[in-house]
């Protein structure tokens, strides 16, 4: 009897035949039903994939301490330093919201990838020095157990800035400031330039500054992936979605001079999922605006700039997208392996790419010629009219070249003074900015991430003092003017 019940349990009848195998097929299909029931039981048991409701793993969590809007190098750097500087370990929940996980329009990956210390503002030089230190020791900072070491393919070839008669005095004073901060820059006369780099035509150049160490270019995509990998291993959550709304509460307060101010605090961030009307309200304590070229829109959503113009409430975040073109050309007789990143006095720049005599270059257009930032289409006429002539004049070998490809990317352009905005907003008290770097964001990202993390965790800047870069300067009109913006 035991054997018969066992046989029945195993799906066989008294005579040992399968229960489903009747003549002409079975209508009951016991075998199939049994396997389905077995699968369901396995999924309900702990460790299985069964959920009572439908699967919501693509949605962000409902609560997060810090929400970082923007998953480019700036946002990931802030996430990294937040997790690294938090005490105790695991105390802060961080969520990074990135609209496009392919990074197709992100400024980080479309960047030319240069890093230099040749700025005129001391804070910029310090930021860049810290960042190069970070990049040199990247495998100590971003080491993940069991993963291969990161290779950002750094070319330590340095930057060469050329100045005409007009700009020579400014260049010299800049080099003095840079040397004071610890950058290794040397000045060269046109004669020395011709000796060192025989392919240069020094006509019209009065002075040149050459960075010997800590300058060069690297691959931004590997930095991004390295940061992403490390930050995920530290427990930061990623979500693919778009921030569409901030729910905030207001509080009225009085300044010492008797003025009424409205302080706002963001309580919820609504993250909308792609191709769907679904959104998730994420309760948060702090929001970090690292949205790059779109930071202005995010700031408007949070209520920055809603007020009468001229007041602090009415000061908008002056960051807007500006399109910049990069062209890749091949020139078989071009400058050799030692070519630094050359920035001509006219604003055109180029650098070598790889071993095959390919060069990357471009030029920033003047205010009147700014292209429409609606899309990332490339204007090839711009190369013919504005980039090629000054470069061919500076490097005679470039008279014969062949353009291989081109692309366009956005600068998160700060229309006020072309320097970054870092730190909290005075009225929307829990929104921090890390944006507006106008083309030098990638090279300052590790240091800015640290500064923002220190601001969030300690309330002040500890390693590099970035108080000249706070939001207040837009209302007070204090420009931090940087001469060397490409």
């Amino acid at each position, binding site marked *: 009897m035991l054997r018969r019940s066992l046989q029945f349990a195993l799906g066989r009848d008294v005579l040992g035949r399968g229960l489903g195998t009747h003549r002409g097929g079975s209508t009951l299909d016991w075998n199939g039903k049994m396997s389905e029931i077995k699968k369901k039981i396995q999924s309900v048991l702990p460790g299985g994939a069964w959920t009572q409701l439908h699967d919501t*793993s693509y949605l962000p*969590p409902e609560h997060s301490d810090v929400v970082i809007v923007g998953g480019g190098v700036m946002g990931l750097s802030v996430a990294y330093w937040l997790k690294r500087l938090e005490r105790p370990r695991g105390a802060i929940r961080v969520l990074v919201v990135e609209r496009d996980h392919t990074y197709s329009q992100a400024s980080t990956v479309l960047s030319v990838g240069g890093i230099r210390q040749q700025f005129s503002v001391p804070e910029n030089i310090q930021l860049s020095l810290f960042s190069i230190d970070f990049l*040199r020791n990247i495998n*100590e900072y971003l*080491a993940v*157990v*069991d*993963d*291969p*070491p990161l290779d950002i*393919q*750094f*070319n*330590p*070839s340095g930057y060469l800035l050329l100045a005409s008669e007009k700009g020579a005095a400014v260049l010299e004073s800049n080099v003095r400031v840079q040397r004071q901060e610890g950058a290794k820059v040397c000045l060269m006369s046109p004669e020395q330039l011709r000796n060192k780099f025989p392919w240069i035509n020094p006509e019209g150049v009065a002075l040149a500054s050459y960075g*010997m*160490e*800590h300058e*060069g270019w690297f691959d931004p995509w590997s930095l991004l992936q390295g940061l992403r*990998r490390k930050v*995920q*291993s530290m*427990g930061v*959550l*990623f979500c693919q979605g778009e921030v569409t709304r901030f729910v905030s509460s207001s509080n009225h307060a009085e300044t010492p001079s008797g003025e009424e101010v409205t302080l706002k605090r963001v309580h919820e961030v609504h993250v909308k999922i792609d191709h769907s009307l679904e959104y998730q309200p994420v309760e948060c304590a702090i929001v970090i605006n690292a949205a790059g070229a779109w930071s202005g829109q995010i700031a408007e959503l949070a209520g920055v700039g809603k007020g009468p113009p001229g007041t602090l409430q009415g000061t908008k975040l002056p960051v807007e997208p500006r399109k910049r073109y990069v062209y890749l050309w091949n020139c078989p007789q071009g400058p*050799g*392996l*030692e*070519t630094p990143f050359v920035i001509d006095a006219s604003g055109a720049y180029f650098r070598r790419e790889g*071993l*095959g005599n390919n060069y990357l270059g471009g030029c920033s257009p003047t205010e009147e010629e700014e292209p429409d930032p609606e899309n990332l289409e490339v204007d090839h006429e711009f190369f013919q009219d504005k980039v090629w002539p000054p470069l061919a004049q500076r490097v005679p070998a470039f008279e014969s070249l062949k353009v291989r490809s081109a692309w366009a990317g956005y600068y998160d352009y700060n229309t006020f003074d072309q320097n970054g905005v870092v730190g909290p907003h005075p009225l929307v008290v829990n929104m921090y900015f890390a944006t507006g770097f106008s083309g030098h964001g990638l090279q300052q990202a590790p240091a800015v991430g640290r500064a923002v993390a220190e601001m969030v965790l300690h309330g002040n800047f500890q390693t590099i003092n970035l108080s000249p870069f706070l939001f207040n300067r837009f209302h007070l009109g204090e420009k931090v003017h940087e001469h060397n913006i490409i």
Partner: protein
Amino acid sequence: MAAPRAPLHLMAPVWNQGTRGIHGLSKAVAPEDSQRKGRSLLQFLADHFYDVQALREYLLRKQVLKVHQKNRPFTHIKERFGPHAAGAYFILKQGGAVKFQGKEWIRPNTRGRFSLDFLKFPEVPVEAVDASGSAINYHGLDNLLALKELQSLWLRHCPHVDDWCLSRLHSLANSLQELSLAGCPRISERGLACLHHLQNLRRLDISDLPAVSNPGLTQILVEEMLPNCEVLGADWTQGLRLGPEEQSRDTASPIPA
């Protein structure tokens, strides 16, 4: 709710492979394909327990700190005896060899001991340094860059000498005549581009650099960059395919793939 960690375990990292000393590191040139079944118990446990992962991170950090400890500066020797003596002491401590001007090579013996006679003559400059196989890195290079009359530098098979280190060598441009970088696993053609500052260089050895992507082309570009220098390295035919007639003639020598 955490994003699933993609199992990026196909390539074992260069530094984590149970290296015993620096010689193990210099052999581990490229990350090998260590499939799941080859992974150790510790790696398996680290996947499943946070504590074990923290332990592995700690062990990794200790390895890194060990290299940094080897490259610490000897400031007390530098202040007392001068930069040449400090640099020589540093190199000898690493297991390398030093040659002072007008004297013989000083090497440590098999036990790592070396004579301290050179401290008696602090003004004599160092002429040649052989730091092959040592753990010298970017920070340790500080000691070498103070040797302003160095003529010959050998950095063969140094596992921590990379492109960043090469960018520092420009301060030796006035005196350096011979440089050997053979067999360093982390040097690529991007670092070799910095060598154009060394205008007095007469002999450069860049053979057997595994991280250089195209050795033949790199050799040509380096020769163009340093016209007065004799560059030893890859043969320019390396990587080229021979034509059919030459192939049948050259059956004796191996044809590189």
